[in-house]
């Protein structure tokens, strides 16, 4: 049999007994043909590839990242906890040194789930990558981590969770938000006041082909990673950029995904979206597995593949080149950009409307962050969700909180008027606690 040059751990959790609804894209059948392909290829007989059994993530693992209103069990089902737990198992395999890389092929996905959770957004309840990353830091010590989100949709949940964290670089390439859910993910979304530049968005135009994706990886993502020097690279490996995907408009291929993975060399890849369950997923997942293991993927090919299906017009090529240039320039100037935006300000606020498409809920947020040179800065969010009858205050003491930000946070939590809010929450990362009143 074959031997894999890189030892690879696989966590496969197709949740064959769970669907959002019978005809929803997130249904039992989604990973069936992927499993057929992976099994028929004999992937698990390859020397150096090991399959791991998923386990449910703990409530505490979720609370480290999210404020679920009113609580975790009301918002996250068994399938969510097992998908997140699958990512934890993958992380353990890598960080214990049992494997060089790992791939969690799990469902449902997570990258649209934000810090505050009132319900399901874009098929996601809880953010499985973020839960994994914070688990890694808690269990294995501080790490600089880069998340590269290659799902076709902007990972607005992951962006929100790491908005203030300059130890976690979030780079997303996705279909332009003017043409696709969730509508966000543009260059000006560049990170919070204390983590300016550590969120990078590259909105690619519809019909971007194989060339465009690989260009963005080679000319933006890799140079930024080179500068950032992460300890770990996490790939949110959504597969809906495929030319056969029914809910998006891109022109990427299985072999393209494999090449992207080979360039990126992520330590851990986590499946996100991807809804072309027969035409794409079996081949894309296989391509990613082979690339992670360091095996030849040149024979991976969709039955209906042709170069014309992944070609892009000249204008798109030029547009992407310009976009990459501008984004990389902004990244290089991130310190100057921050200095200008926080000059003379003690705190910075923003207002946001967060829409939960699956259940039709609307959340209104006012978020405030202390400008701080010593830590990620205290943040608090005043959040209302009239559809759920909730009005909460969420206070976030960051992982590296300085004494001032900690004191301010505790004070805010203590003094918040209990009559105004249906719930007051304190997420205390250094103490690994979630307090709720």
């Amino acid at each position, binding site marked *: 049999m074959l031997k894999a040059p890189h030892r690879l751990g696989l966590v*496969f959790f197709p*949740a064959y007994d769970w669907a959002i609804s019978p005809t929803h894209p997130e249904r039992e*059948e989604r990973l*069936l043909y992927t499993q057929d*392909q992976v099994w*028929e290829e*004999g992937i698990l*007989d390859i020397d150096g590839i090991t399959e791991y059994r998923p386990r449910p993530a703990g409530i505490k693992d979720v609370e480290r990242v999210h404020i679920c209103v009113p609580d975790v069990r009301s918002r996250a089902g068994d399938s969510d906890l097992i998908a997140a737990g699958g990512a934890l198992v993958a992380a353990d395999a890598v960080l214990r040194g049992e494997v060089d890389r790992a791939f969690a092929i799990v469902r449902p996905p997570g990258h649209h789930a934000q810090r505050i959770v009132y319900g399901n957004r874009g098929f996601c309840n809880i953010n499985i990558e973020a839960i994994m990353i914070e688990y890694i830091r808690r269990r294995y010590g501080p790490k600089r981590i880069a998340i590269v989100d290659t799902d076709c949709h902007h990972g607005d949940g992951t962006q929100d969770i790491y908005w203030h964290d300059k130890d976690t670089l979030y780079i997303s390439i996705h279909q332009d938000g003017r043409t696709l859910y969730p509508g966000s993910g543009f260059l000006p979304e560049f990170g919070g006041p204390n983590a300016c530049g550590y969120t990078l968005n590259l909105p690619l135009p519809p019909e971007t082909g194989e060339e465009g994706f690989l260009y963005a990886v080679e000319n933006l993502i890799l140079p930024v990673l080179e500068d950032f020097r992460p300890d770990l690279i996490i790939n949110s490996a959504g597969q809906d950029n495929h030319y056969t995907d029914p809910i998006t408009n891109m022109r990427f291929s299985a072999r393209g995904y494999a090449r992207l993975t080979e360039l990126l060399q992520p330590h851990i890849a986590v499946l996100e979206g991807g809804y072309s369950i027969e035409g794409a997923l079996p081949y894309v997942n296989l391509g990613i597995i082979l690339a992670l293991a360091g095996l030849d993927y040149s*024979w991976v090919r969709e039955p209906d593949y042709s170069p014309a299906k992944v070609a892009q017009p000249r204008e798109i090529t030029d547009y992407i080149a310009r976009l990459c240039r501008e984004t990389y320039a902004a990244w290089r100037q991130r310190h100057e950009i921050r200095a200008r935006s926080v000059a003379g300000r003690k705190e910075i606020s923003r207002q946001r409307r967060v829409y939960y498409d699956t259940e039709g809920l609307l959340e209104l947020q006012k978020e405030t962050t202390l400008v701080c040179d010593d830590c990620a800065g205290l943040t608090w969010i005043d959040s209302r969700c009239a559809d759920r009858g909730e009005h909460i205050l969420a206070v976030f003491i960051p992982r590296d909180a300085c004494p001032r930000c900690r004191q301010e946070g505790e004070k805010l939590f203590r003094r918040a008027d209990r009559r105004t809010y249906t719930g007051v929450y304190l997420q205390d990362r250094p103490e690994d606690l979630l307090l709720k009143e």
Partner: protein
Amino acid sequence: MLIGLDMGGTHTDAVLISGGEVIRHVKVLTDPADFLASVREALDTLLEGRDPATVRRINLSTTVCTNAIVEGKTEPVGLLLEPGPGLNPSFLACAKVNVFLQGSIDHRGRETGSLKVGELEAAKEQFAAAGIRCLAAVGKFSVRNPAHELEIAKRLEGSYDFITLGHRLSGRLAFPRRVYTAYLNSSVWRVYSRFAEAVRSYGKSRGLKIEPFILKADGGTLTLSGAMNTPVETILSGPAASIMGALALAPGEDDCVILDVGGTTTDIAFCAGGVPLFEPQGIRLGPYPTLVRSFFVHSIGLGGDSSVRIADRRMAIGPQRQGPPVALGGPAPTPTDAFIALGMLPVGDRGLAVEAIEGLGRSLGLSVRATAHSILDELAAGIAGAVGRLLNYLNSRPVYTIREVLTERKLEPRRVIAVGAPAPLLKPFLEKALGLPVEVPSLAGVANAVGAALSHPTATLAVFADTERGVLTAPEIGWQERIGRSFSLDDARQRAFALLERRLRELGYTEGTPEIEVIEEQSFNMVRGFYTVGRNIRLKVQNRPSLGGLKGGGNCHA
């Protein structure tokens, strides 16, 4: 009367069972140059003074095919592969002549690339130039649609002595295993055919009225002639014979560990609720992972004849065997010498054993008795450690549904059955090391032959039904039929049961209604757009290996 015979590497064991009791057992040396001679010698001894016409069943576990493969004495094969898209298939070129064909079938069984007939003509010339007489044809996803393999067979058969078609070997998805299994099957076809022919004419000359059965690695049997199509199924049946024997001699419905302690190795197997665990995919033979169904058996290099030495001021045992025990003229002390030195085993020269054990203990400052105990404790600890690791592995195997993640059933053995020659003496040491009661049946030394004698035909059957395509396929028996839109999981289950029962009858199953169970079943609605376009049903059924014919062990049919 029932006869069971297990041909091992060094010995061939055989038993004669009558009235539910073992009434005669023999042990002869295996002659690797003439396997039939060993069979003849053992059977002649068993049948001495008895009427061969009253023998109702003969089950043989033979190493003919295993040996041919391990020793490279197989026939050159022409391999026709249709790999389709996926892994680079060059690593599968295991045969003398390997031909990679275009054409492909996808996961649903749809043709996504047609077979090129011209390539078959070119292949024929290559085979002719290399003097190839046996072929194997294997396509990716051929179990979902065997059309291309069948087309290859149609165009090539007649010009060759034997062709293995991949989809007939197993319904499991695992193209590389299918390739290796098909290759091995063709490569041992001739050696098996000759053996089968020789056994048949021997039986005729002795006046036997029945066709012998051959034991498989899954504890089931198939007829001598039935195995002509799938001789690969006869490989590595020895451990299965011992497991079946252990279960016949010490039956139970619980979780248990089965140990077969031999001279150089110990085989470890497990039962869940009284039923042996299977390899999830198939057995591995040398470098080849296969689809040959087998009990889960793990072999470790520790046995009664393993050599003992001191390393880092500790007792170290195995994995190599340097020869017989010192007491029998061997070069290095063994656990058997420890038994002899302790006076537990009256064979060989005890003085030599004591001297050897004393020599080992001197550097550790231990007495003969303490040294001997320490050796046997170490042997038992080695076996117990392996049992623990395997349990850990078995209890962390992946599952794919929420229900299975949340309601995990763990294997928790409550007892151990130990067979093999050293088992009776090793019992107290094993009990201490494993912390479990150890049962050593009285016929532990010939458990393998007993197990062989009591086995029945087994078969598995995979069924795929795709109501959108309107096709039901049962690859192992080459069955395809049209089905309607409303075909359900229940319908599929009924069909699978009927097809399996029919197959078992063909394989010589005569013991009443076979106990058929479902080992996997899944039914998925296939949704395209907002509409359900059909159902995708997968089902695997089998009959459990069953035992019959021994008093106190299972049902008595003898």
